[in-house]
């Protein structure tokens, strides 16, 4: 598993990705929660009928998550947080799915579990993805993610949810600004 076990999060690194303005300085992110269920496929996130827009991601982003919540793209504000259930991002390898979530302003995705390719793609393009118990989050809750402490605070419900630390290798990629920058900086892999 690419997000397994023992690695301890290095938050000064992890904080470099995602919604930079929000978290860059202090490892904190804050936004409203949008709640989704289990099995949110990449077809629901980036529908195949907009295949021709893949070369125009700003336009494709206007349809992000459209088949799971038709109003999502018009409601989401920069820094908002998507909370899914199990197996978030299953299906196609289309990197456009996490990319348009990021373009639309999504600061982070929380889920009970992620599909492998979606998780890896998100790290590569710098979208924060964290595994935690999302049952304690409802639509509209104000959430604060503390990357240093490894907790999501549900400010609306006044409770804390711990998230699984990212594996070391992914932190290295994130801290370099994504996979492309990691390769450029290190002239190859340095994991």
């Amino acid at each position, binding site marked *: *598993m*690419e997000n*397994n076990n023992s690695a301890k999060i290095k938050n000064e690194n992890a904080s470099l990705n995602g919604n930079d303005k929000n978290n860059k300085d202090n490892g904190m992110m804050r936004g409203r929660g949008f709640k989704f269920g289990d*099995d949110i*496929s990449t*077809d*629901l996130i980036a*529908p*195949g*009928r907009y*295949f*021709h*827009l*893949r*070369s*125009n991601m700003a336009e494709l982003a206007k349809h992000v998550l459209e*088949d799971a919540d038709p109003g999502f793209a018009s409601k989401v504000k920069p820094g908002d947080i998507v909370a899914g259930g*199990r*197996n978030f991002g*299953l*299906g*196609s*390898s*289309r*990197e*456009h799915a996490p990319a348009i979530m990021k373009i639309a302003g999504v600061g982070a995705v929380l889920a009970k*579990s992620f*599909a*492998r*390719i979606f998780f*890896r*793609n998100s790290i*590569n*393009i710098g979208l924060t993805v964290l595994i935690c118990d999302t049952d304690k989050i409802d639509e509209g809750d104000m959430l604060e993610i503390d990357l240093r402490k490894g907790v999501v605070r549900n400010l609306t419900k006044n409770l804390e949810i711990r998230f699984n630390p990212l*594996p070391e*290798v992914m932190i290295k990629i994130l801290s370099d600004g*994504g*996979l*492309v920058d990691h*390769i*450029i900086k290190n002239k*190859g*892999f340095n*994991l």
Partner: protein
Amino acid sequence: MKTITEKILSSHAGRDVRAGDIAVVDVDIVMAQDGTGPLAVSQIKKLGFSKVANPAKSIFFIDHAAPSPRKELSDSHKVLRDFAKESGARLSDIGEGVCHQILVESYVCPGDVVIGADSHTCTSGALGAFATGMGSTDIAVGFALAKTWLLVPQTIKVNFNGKLGKGVYAKDLIIYLIGKITADGATYKALEFSGSVSSGLTIEDRFTISNMAVEAGAKAGIFAADETTNRYLGQRGRAECFKEIRADEGAKYEAEIDIDCTEVEPMISMPHTVDNTMPVSRIDKVKVDQVLIGTCTNGRLNDLKIAAGILKGRKIAEGVRLIVAPASRIVYLEALRAGIIETLIESGATVISPGCGPCVGIHQGILGDGEVCLSTQNRNFKGRMGNPDAFIYLSSPATAAWSAVRGFIADPREAL
């Protein structure tokens, strides 16, 4: 004592690796298709590369929207054609077929590491390769460096034993398995298919099973490379690339799943998830508007032959559209020469160009509101075939063909 995955990844990491290790490995084959390729090209350029590391085994496939139905996609196709020329990579253009089929026909050898910007890259695992899907950025790095990083996965061994009953095919086995272990039952894991039924399966049947490993979340779906593999590579004029690959006795598996195939009936995945499964014999009467036979899951010669065997001398039901998408030009030609295409067309089928066609919801068979499609493809997510208000069921080619005749989802054993 190693699993097949550990063996292949060790030989590509230059050191002994085990499940749980992170490894940077050499990659033999890298590919992207027209949905993921243009983004990979822009990432390759961002990396500062204009060439690919291993041109003969770097391939761009134009198969998802082929031929192009829209000018935006035509422009994306141009990006791939131009970059292939510039970089030295191979191009597989419209009409040649679905990437996964062409990889197994012409490129992949047992023991290879294959990465592709398409989730069903796992299909090549049927040849005893380690093959996995990734996104465009990972693949861009693969094109540029012929390397990737991987967490060596734990392996779940699936033992298919017993005997396949009448009307039960590889597709039924994999749908049954996914129903049993669920859509995330093998997430991050490799599936290794074993048991007496697995060794007796044709290579085409193995492709079908490996193709759908990702529908259980798996990173790879691997068969041992054996005499069946050898024979197939020989038929494809690639005998020299065969080598036997099997797991060591005593290799460590995270789990073993025993399936008695004698118990498996013709199966269906119901909307909107692949793991929402049911034996055909137990579902209520579901009227079908469209039937699709083909794709990278079940668009090979024997699949079309099975369908034609059922459709011969029969007509599809009134109000049903039957679309046939051969997986590749080679399959198409073989089916044509064998009279299979003629039989299918006589029954009322519309044969479309080899490629992904309606399975990805771009063109050539998009569903209308409220319509039902029974397809031999691998995935039935909401919106998959271009309309979130439509309903997709999955089955074997036999079930699909017989259902096209009946006009509703029907048990193929009635026709055999």
